[in-house]
């Protein structure tokens, strides 16, 4: 019995060590001459090749001047030390944030709307520490809100989807059924209708809990269901679950060397995930927003409150690279570029699904 007790205890310790902190470095960053930045990722984790990966890219760029894969990010390295935590489950977010705050970090970044209430609690307890939340809302004087006009970027990829569409039906695969994700879906639909007014848009969501971001199996089933209903372009906004849609279009195969069904990636540039099957990616440049908030802290210009990144500040965009060049004709590109300018000038107004209520 004694052994059983100790072995269980040992196991729980192991679990605590593994589950709470999957980062390779320790929390403590002792070099006081540098600005210390702590980032707490969303449940998806920094390798979701999407939203969190983009936030991680911003931090990496600010710390080293390089993207996580080692290539130059085109911006100077700032004088910072960065530490990151990937919470294994929602309950470990708060201790992670408090661990940074307790050690007197200069800036703590929370990734994802789900961390908003937790950050509010922690930020109230540490009024002298600066916080930034991606996609969240807060009125606290020490919290910066990094927000994006996802609807504008989604409008543009919706146009591309409609241009590439042949069947008259396109799909949208969202992660959770929440306002933020509706913003992607609504913008996408409006963009598609601007090109083809009678196009049918099938909108599906993976789930209603945060497990919805990590279920590629179900993502694939939903994508296959959309394909069986005639959708030939699918826009994903579902974190890791969205990768299932990539598998689904690949499974649908190619005819004459061209993919019959295409997928549109989200947040980070996902064009290289399945080259030839990815029409484009709706870039949500979390990396830019994270970099610039770190830069603000370094230069002593940190401002709490709203920081909105739209098409204008390179906050959202559509991805063009060598992987999707064969899929997008100059005519498509030209039309989308025109729309981009019109949105920036205010001539086209894209509905923001989160404004409705």
């Amino acid at each position, binding site marked *: *019995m004694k*052994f*059983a007790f100790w*072995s*269980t205890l040992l*196991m*729980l310790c*192991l*679990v605590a*060590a*593994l*589950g709470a902190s*999957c*980062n*390779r470095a320790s929390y403590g960053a002792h070099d006081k001459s540098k600005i210390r930045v702590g980032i707490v990722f969303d449940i*998806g*984790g*920094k*390798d*979701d*090749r999407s939203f969190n990966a983009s936030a991680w890219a911003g931090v990496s760029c600010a710390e080293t001047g390089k993207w996580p894969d080692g290539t130059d990010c085109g911006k100077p390295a700032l004088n910072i030390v960065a530490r990151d935590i*990937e919470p*294994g*489950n929602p309950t470990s977010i708060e201790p992670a944030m408090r661990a940074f705050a307790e050690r007197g970090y200069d800036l703590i970044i929370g990734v994802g709307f789900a961390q908003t209430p937790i950050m509010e609690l922690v930020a109230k307890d540490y009024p002298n520490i600066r916080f930034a939340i991606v996609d969240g809302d807060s009125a606290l004087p020490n919290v910066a809100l990094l927000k994006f006009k996802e609807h504008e970027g989604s409008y543009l990829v919706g146009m591309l989807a409609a241009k590439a569409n042949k069947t008259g039906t396109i799909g949208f695969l969202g992660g959770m*059924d929440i306002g933020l994700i509706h913003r992607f879906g609504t913008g996408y639909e409006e963009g598609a209708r601007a090109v083809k007014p009678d196009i049918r848009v*099938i*909108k*599906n*969501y993976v*789930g*209603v809990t945060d*497990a919805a971001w*990590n*279920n*590629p*199996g*179900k993502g*694939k*089933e*939903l994508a*296959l*269901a959309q394909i*069986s*209903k005639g959708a030939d372009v699918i826009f994903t906004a579902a974190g*890791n679950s969205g*990768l*299932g849609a*990539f*598998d689904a279009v*690949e*499974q649908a195969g190619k005819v004459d060397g061209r993919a019959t069904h295409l997928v549109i990636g989200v947040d980070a540039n996902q064009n290289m*995930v*399945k080259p030839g099957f990815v029409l484009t990616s709706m870039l949500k440049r979390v990396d830019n927003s994270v970099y610039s908030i770190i830069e603000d802290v370094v230069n002593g210009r940190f401002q709490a409150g709203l920081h909105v990144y739209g098409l204008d500040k390179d906050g959202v965009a559509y991805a063009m690279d060598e992987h999707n060049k064969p899929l997008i004709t100059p005519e498509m590109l030209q039309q989308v570029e025109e729309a981009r300018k019109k949105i920036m000038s205010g001539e086209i107004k894209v509905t923001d699904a989160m404004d409705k209520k």
Partner: protein
Amino acid sequence: MSELFSVALFWSTIRLSTPLILAALGGMFSERAGVINIALEGMMLAGAFTAAAVTHAVGNPFVGLAAGMAAGALIAAIHAVACISYKADQVVTGTAINILMIGMPAFLSGAFFLSSGSTPQLPKEDLIPWTPIVIAFALVPIAWYVLYKTPFGLRLRSVGENPEAADAAGVSVARMKYAGVLLSGALAGIGGAYLSIGQSSLFTRNMTSGRGFIALAALIFGKWRPVQTLLACLLFGFTEAVSIQMQGVVKLPSGEDIPVQFIQMVPYLLTIIVLAGFIGSSRPPQALGIPYQKER
């Protein structure tokens, strides 16, 4: 409605049921031997991660599948040692394994792929979308035969029902329990491998999303019997497939979309209705969850 019931729905049901069938049959061997196995989820995660990692390294999905199976069995061995040899609480050990397996793949993927919880994506040629399905459905009659028509099956069941009597009859209780638990790990491992190298093309953290627990529910629902368990898994798979096909297609008479939350309730609602209405009482193996202490 015609869009709803189609060939696509059939295959979707098969695909969604497969991991459940494998894990539930695994759970059956363990629980029939008297060891509660709520660690199915963790064993599936072990299988899913190992299968994807090994397939990536070797380039052969069948080797990956075998490795996933072995990984499931390895995790099951931890459960077996703790619960059988050291008579630890089976629910506590199972929970610990589940939590351990949330962290372990993240930790290992950091070491192997400089990632934090996912493996690199596998090319389509390295996937085996059909093999695990065939295995799952072939296993049902095999499991039935083994459980009811072989001496091994008889001993396994006797150990789960009345270990004292089995012991008196000369059956090694501990050895039978070990066999049951290890088998459950191997099968759950295949179930997990299907998720990562059959249905999807990579491992992502926590990708089982509760399927291990659903499999356990199917096992109880199926009264710890192979064919009934298969039917229960098919029902769960079918209801989920329906909810997937329904989303965004079936509309209210007013023309508005049915809320997603409601559609995603459907599988659970159906389950409750079926459970309450048609199944009757489900009796677990008599000695389930009780560590066996040999009399001196």
